[in-house]
């Protein structure tokens, strides 16, 4: 018996005017996968997430399995310091809007280590890492089983970045969540993702990190030698087992 994929994307095209950002993209994601979406600037990573959330118009088919509940962590929001909103105001708005149980805000806050002091602070004065945690908490309200995360660590320091990824990883492990993550950080992708979807106009591809993150692929994708790749994988690189077959690379 074949298991129905959690997400099935067939021949997806997203265009703005005459400019197609994503063209004819097809891929599948199973329950529990950790999918990293990589690609150069302008390859359509954020656009893909927005299409998956049905926030923008597209052609082709995006099919989520029936039991899917989506959570979305957008790319860094620049919180206006003038907004008289506390983190609690922000989270409570979603709880009321979706008519969630009133204790869910406290549960999620405890799980993510959001203190009362942090919850009552104005969102404009939170640090980048704190605000990112609040955004993840917002996404977790409503108990989603899929998280779509758009560059969660952009402009964060390394330590905070590490903590955010640890948090996402624990969510995937402990809750069995499926995570689709846009990231520029290939070392993080290599360590955390079970699948990599690389977006490029000519040849989008999908597969396990070891098969996809090869120097040849990265050079093709980013049109430049990827130095940090060598740093991470100099040992695997020597191994002939790391060679990738064309079939595995295909979407």
């Amino acid at each position: 018996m074949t298991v129905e994929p959690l997400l099935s994307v067939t021949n997806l095209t997203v265009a703005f005017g005459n400019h197609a950002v994503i063209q004819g993209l097809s891929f599948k994601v199973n329950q529990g996968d950790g999918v990293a979406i990589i690609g150069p600037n302008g390859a359509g990573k954020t656009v893909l997430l927005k299409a998956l959330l049905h926030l923008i118009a597209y052609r082709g088919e995006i099919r989520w399995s029936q039991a899917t509940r989506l959570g979305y962590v957008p790319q860094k929001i620049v919180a206006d310091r003038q907004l008289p909103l506390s983190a609690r105001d922000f989270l409570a708005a979603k709880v009321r809007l979706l008519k969630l149980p009133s204790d869910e805000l406290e549960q999620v806050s405890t799980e993510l280590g959001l203190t009362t002091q942090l919850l009552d602070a104005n969102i404009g004065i939170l640090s980048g890492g704190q605000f990112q945690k609040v955004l993840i908490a917002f996404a977790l309200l409503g108990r989603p089983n899929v998280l779509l995360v758009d560059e969660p660590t952009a402009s964060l320091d390394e330590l905070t970045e590490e903590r955010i990824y640890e948090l996402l990883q624990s969510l995937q492990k402990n809750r069995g969540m499926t995570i689709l993550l846009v990231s520029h950080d290939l070392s993080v992708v290599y360590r955390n993702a079970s699948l990599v979807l690389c977006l490029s106009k000519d040849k989008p591809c999908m597969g396990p990190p070891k098969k996809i993150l090869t120097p040849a692929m990265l050079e093709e994708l980013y049109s430049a030698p990827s130095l940090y790749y060598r740093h991470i994988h100099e040992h695997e690189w020597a191994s002939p087992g790391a060679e990738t077959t064309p079939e595995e690379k295909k979407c």
Partner: protein
Amino acid sequence: MLRVQGLLLVLALFFSLAAALVGCLALMKRMLLASDVISHLALPGIGIALLLRKSPILGGAATLFLGTFLVWRLQRKTGLATESAIGVIFATALAIGAAVIPNEDLAESLFGELGKISLVGFLLGMAAVALVIVSIALLRDQLSLSILSPDLAAATGVNVPRLDLRFLLIFSLTVLVGLRFMGALLASSLVIMPAATARQLADKLTNFVLVASAASLLSVIAGFLLNAFLFKFPTAGPTITMFSALLFGLSLLVRKRLS
């Protein structure tokens, strides 16, 4: 006469609450000044109604809502920012208004009340104010989320374009009630001033709304009393506005002391 003044005061008090709520959200959406401009969309309608000897408030309402809808459409179709779309429609409305309003009525349309209030006018005003307050209460969460991030709001199930239109209409309805006793130029002062005052003093949404409402109520009560017993201008609008400006000045001083 006393009865008319009494009705006007009651309406003004409830209006001040509605204006404060709308002002809080308009401040968060960074479109406070838009309320000042939106009130001018009523001018062509007032002018045409005066020419045809019809009710100026009805004429004003017609062009105000038509203009509001056009602002929304222009924004949606062209991707213009709300303030740019309002700017374009405003300039056009002002030009038409200046051309059609008879000279002798121009000053009253800009600064004064539009005729004496009737019982029906009072009840309609109260219904409009109630609609504004209930709508803001129901939409506050959607509006807060869409202000912070339209994408996040949409991903949470909010229809953002429809919400924008609803807010613009609520906004215009508030301004319309304000026109009744403040005139086109000052109709929006109670939308702008109390919210700006409250922002100096509150960091959380609940406190922000409470302080704005209190500042708005106080401005109306003090404005009416000062005008009735001291200034004796033809309408209380200028006194209300000046008093709310005074509160804003005080809020700046308090903020400075607190920080």
